[in-house]
């Protein structure tokens, strides 16, 4: 299932920030992880991912840097900044509140618990 553009505009950056919370990742890795961990719901074309990464970088939420990969060639990695970490926490709170509200309206099956698990 593909998500509407407007919904993706809000969810996409949050998903990327969340993936980077665990550590630095490079572009293709992020594409793969998004597709795999969201069952394809949040899969996005590279033509969308890279502009999104540059936007997050310009806002100071992620930091891009070149580093030599195991293969010997240079690869650009991204990692979360302190500002990005704060934004992730804040946006997560908002999305949880939204999910709870949607659940109470019967739009979603169950609201996530405050800890992030299933209710």
């Amino acid at each position, binding site marked *: 299932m593909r998500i509407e553009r407007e919904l993706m505009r809000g969810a996409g950056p949050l998903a990327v920030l969340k993936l980077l919370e665990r550590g630095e990742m*490079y572009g*293709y890795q992020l594409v793969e992880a998004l597709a795999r961990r969201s069952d394809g719901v949040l899969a996005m074309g590279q033509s969308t991912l*890279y502009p999104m*990464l*540059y936007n997050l970088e310009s806002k100071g939420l992620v930091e891009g840097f070149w580093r030599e990969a195991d293969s010997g060639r240079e690869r650009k990695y991204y990692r979360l900044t302190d500002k990005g970490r704060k934004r992730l926490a804040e946006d997560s709170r908002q999305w949880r509140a939204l999910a709870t509200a949607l659940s109470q309206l019967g739009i979603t099956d169950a609201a996530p618990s405050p800890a992030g698990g299933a209710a």
Partner: protein
Amino acid sequence: MSDAASRMRSAPARARTSGAREVVARSGLPERLGEIVLGVASRCRLWRREREDVAKELCGHFLDGLASGAPADRLAADFGDPAAAAKLITAARKRLRPAWWQVWRMGLRAVGWTTAACLVLYAIMAARYFLASPTIGRNYTRELREAAFANTPESELAWPLYIRAVREFGPLPEFMRSEHPDPRRPDDINFELMTAFLDSHASALATVREAAGRPMIGYPWSDVADPDYSRALEISNPAYRYDPSAQAPTENPLMIGVLLPHLGEMRKLGRWLATDAHLAASRKDSQRFIADIEALAGMADQALREPFIISQMVGVALGQLLCVTVLEEAADPGLLDARGLRTLAHRIAAIGGGRISIESTGEVLMIEDVIQRFYSDDGSGGGRLVGSPMREEMWDSWGAARPRGEFILEALRPVQSAVLMPSRSKIRAEIDRFKAEFARDDQLQPWRAHERTSDGPYSWLMYDVIGSIPPIFSSLQGGDANTGPMTTGLAHRDRFESTRGATLAVLALQSYFVAEGRYPPALESLSPEYLPKVPVDPFDGRPLRYVPASATGGPVLYSIGADATDDGGVLPPTEEGRRRMSDLKLFARARKSGEDGRLAASMLESVDGDWILWPADGNR
């Protein structure tokens, strides 16, 4: 992208993407994926280094995909639209640029938007300016002509006779082109030559006197000189050639451009009459003296009947000249008998209907005429400055030098119209204000001249509004309320009225002397038999000062002068002081500058003394 399409790319595009090409070539990507990378990089409107970075990262992306086992076709399909990617990447990468660039871009955008807004505004203003046009509904010059003398029979118009007089005087003698062209009194240089000239042109002088006896001048106001007059000028000045084909008169001429050459001619003929009066006095020819003075009075009345302030000022000047001439000669015991004195007194008292009232009709219509030619008319009194075909005509007909960059100035006219120029209704209101204030100023007594206010609205109308409508009106620029065109005119009128009062008093004194063999002890003794009322001093409103017997023997009649202090009938010590002691404008300025109605003494140092009206030494 196909090979063919690739080959068709322009040389500049190749140059722009040469760095990205190298990156793709070095990466070893399959051709299809390499073309996607190049397709994105070439479309990105970024700096070369940024494009190389984008190419490098996308190459890395595809290489990572291939390394993970994904086929090139799937990677290409998953990438999405290169054009959309390039657009998004360009926008996103630009946000990563340094702060100075962001500021510069914001400034550039601000300039761009401001320029665009200005252009839109200008387009609106230009449309309002160029698409509207004025409506010339009235022919003010014709209206004035009809009101002034259209119904007067030609036998009562003076102008044809003045032209005849110019012809009869013939070529002007050489001394009139010398340093002393205008001797008026026996002790002036060239007076002998002047008397010979006047004596030999008795018939021309008679024509002038006859002309002066008619009620109206009847000069045909137009934007070209009267042809008959121009032909007469060929006689008085053999070097002058009249070219009748030079310019045809306009049916509805711009009133501010109407020529009034008759005024200069009348001033000249008036001076000759005054000189002739002195000549007559020196010969004890009272009949000729009285005839000359009456002719001067007639000319003054004619000029005063014209609706233009400049004409009325000529009338005032002729009246002043007449009075000074009488004051200079009236004490001559052998010149005027009781009847002659009475005749002159009555004629002088009648100039301008007894008291000259300056009329602003002509000036107001001049302003209204300009407005109707350059302003639109919405039918309810409103309107604005608009493009007028008149402007182009005026460059040619007025012979004005076009300024440098005239095109730019003209292009700015819509802005001037929208931003700087007042509306027609505002001008109308100010014209009404001017008329009301000028009528009030005209009635104010001279010692209250500092309360006059009409210079304010007049200067605004003439200099700020009319003076801002080039081409010809630029010559009006530089004037303002401080130059006081209206108060100056009224001060000349007040000075004449004071001089007239003194002249009537002197004629009464002489009549008293003829009857009683002595001068009266006080001016009040003249009333009512010789003088209806004692004239007042223009500087304080009290009766003119009179000393029956002075140190020189004869009586003295004087005003306290511009310093408003009675010095007992003493002339100021300096030439400038003697010249300015009757300066009512200086007096009004000093009163305005002083506190609580007191005079600013520092402005009046040069006029420490009195204005001696009779004997007439102080009047020349």
